[in-house]
């Protein structure tokens, strides 16, 4: 760690870990409900568990991204964060929004719009929170000694993410319009500006871990984020095929979303090539595992599995089935979950001065969580394909089909258990690192 204020990142990541544990817990509640073990139905019905599960995903990732920004921006701008006390206020307000929303969901206090269930009064707190965060980050960046491409791309991603939250707050009488603009938020986040955030973090990690020249890495960063927007913005059309808008989206969405894997392929090739060109001398191998793993699995999960059902001819049958859950799980994990765990794995030794990277626990965390999540993806995939054929081709009733595919959810739960063990190892490592301290200012490896 080079600047004392980078320590703030630690607290955002601690919140992330707590929310991740809760997210997994609610995932299990849903998994068990799907095999008929719904004893909690009266207190936590499926729609509550589902809203909590997906919202916690968003909040733990955002908290992870914010932590990453608080770690990266001072180092890139070569100055301490401005007004660090306000960053703690921002952390508290973020935790407050998250916790209040989640409790509210148990009492029917929500908007009932997939991914954007947060009720309106809390939306304003989100706006306040994000404005405060952006203010601190941008102020630091623009008063710093240098403005690097990595820092600009990361900040631009965070700024656009905040702006794109707004279309989700407009009220519509038509379900079609509601859905149309809801995707402006959700799609343009995860298949647009979040990729900028991911690209920025990835670029920072590659510069630090491989020792390859910044100019080379940042040039390719521009190409990658260029490809992301070139395909991703018009790729939004793949959500508009069957919601009641013009057929033109079948063509536009079909073509451009078919190009979306290119950005992820470029990201994977970029990361692997930089690693091969690099010195391979950095001792924090586990951070490198997570970094390269993220670049590769985001290509598989977001790129390939997304492509598998993005063409309108295929999506006509798979839309609204568990095939989406298959793609969603590996895409979020590969692109965003792993990159947050990567930056944490890199930064924790620097923040605490403890070099715990080469331990069996750290390796188990990586392998078990990844094998577990790949297994879950396969279980969702088999269930989804079976559902598609039975329901959409053979016209069987919904619940008949659900009973047929129940067995795949037993596999899902077993694989999720493996995943959860991996995450437990990760959190044990996190705790073992202890709190960040100022002595670590001199102990950094880099």
């Amino acid at each position, binding site marked *: 760690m080079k600047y004392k204020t980078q320590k703030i990142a630690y607290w955002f990541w601690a919140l992330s870990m707590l929310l991740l544990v809760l997210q997994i817990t609610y995932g299990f509640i849903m998994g068990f409900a799907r095999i008929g073990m719904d004893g909690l139905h009266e207190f936590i019905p499926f729609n509550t568990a589902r809203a909590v599960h997906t919202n916690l995903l968003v909040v733990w990732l955002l908290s992870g991204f914010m932590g990453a920004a608080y770690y990266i921006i001072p180092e890139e701008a070569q100055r301490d964060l401005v007004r660090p006390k306000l960053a703690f206020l921002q952390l508290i307000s973020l935790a407050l929004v998250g916790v209040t929303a989640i409790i509210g969901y148990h009492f029917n206090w929500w908007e009932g719009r*997939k991914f954007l269930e947060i009720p309106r009064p809390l939306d304003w707190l989100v706006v306040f929170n994000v404005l405060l965060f952006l203010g601190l980050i941008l102020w630091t960046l623009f008063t710093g000694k240098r403005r690097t491409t990595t820092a600009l791309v990361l900040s631009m991603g965070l700024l656009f993410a905040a702006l794109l939250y707004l279309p989700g707050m407009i009220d519509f009488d*038509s379900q079609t319009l*509601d859905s149309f603009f809801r995707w402006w938020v959700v799609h343009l986040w995860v298949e647009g500006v979040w990729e900028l955030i991911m690209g920025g973090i990835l670029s920072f990690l590659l510069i630090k871990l491989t020792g390859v020249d910044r100019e080379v890495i940042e040039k390719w960063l521009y*190409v990658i984020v*260029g490809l992301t927007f070139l395909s991703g913005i018009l790729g939004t059309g793949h959500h508009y095929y069957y919601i009641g808008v013009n057929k033109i989206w079948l063509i536009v969405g079909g073509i451009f979303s078919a190009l979306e894997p290119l950005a992820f392929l470029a990201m994977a090739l970029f990361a692997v090539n930089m690693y091969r060109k690099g010195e391979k001398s950095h001792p924090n191998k586990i951070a490198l595992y997570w970094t390269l793993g993220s670049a590769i699995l985001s290509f598989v999960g977001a790129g390939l599995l997304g492509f598998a059902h993005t063409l309108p001819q295929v999506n006509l049958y798979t839309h609204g089935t568990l095939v989406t859950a298959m793609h969603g799980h590996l895409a979020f994990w590969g692109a965003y979950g792993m990159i947050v765990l990567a930056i944490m794995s890199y930064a924790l030794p620097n923040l605490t001065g403890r070099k715990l990277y080469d331990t069996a626990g750290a390796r188990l965390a990586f392998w078990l969580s990844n094998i577990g999540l790949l297994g879950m993806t396969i279980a969702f995939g088999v269930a989804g394909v079976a559902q598609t054929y039975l329901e959409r081709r053979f016209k069987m009733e*919904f619940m008949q089909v659900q009973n047929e595919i129940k067995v795949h959810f037993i596999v899902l739960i077993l694989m999720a258990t493996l995943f959860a063990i991996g995450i437990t190892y990760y959190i044990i490592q996190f705790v073992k690192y202890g709190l960040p301290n100022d002595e670590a200012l001199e102990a950094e490896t880099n």
Partner: protein
Amino acid sequence: MLSKKQARAFFLGGTVVTFLIFIGLTVYSLSKAQDQTHSENITEAVIRGKHIWEKNNCMGCHTLFGEGAYYAPELTKVIERRGEAYVKGVLMSPVPWQINGRKMVAYNMSEADALDVVEFFKWAGNVDLNGFEHVVSPLAKEKIEANN
């Protein structure tokens, strides 16, 4: 070989051009002439029904237009498929509706609220979904006709 400046121009240029096309297509596809939703049929009752649909996060289990949580049936054509009386019965049930072992939240709705939700489903059932309405399971009218 590509320079950093060229790479930045590719990023900025590509983003601006695709974003403008996206806005243009949005304006075009949401114009009155392209309406596939029969927006003139969105009555007060349909809007109230939509609010009830959102207030109870029905999308947290069901799907509508294929969007939702895949835990409970797709509801795009539910009125054609099940009829009004059945849907009202489910919504007004004071005990959890339970078919084939999967429980629904007992909403115990008033008849007026249930009717609003039915009106919302009727509107949704008539939206032109570019062919998805004929595929989405279980087939509504087509299946009933085939069985007769």
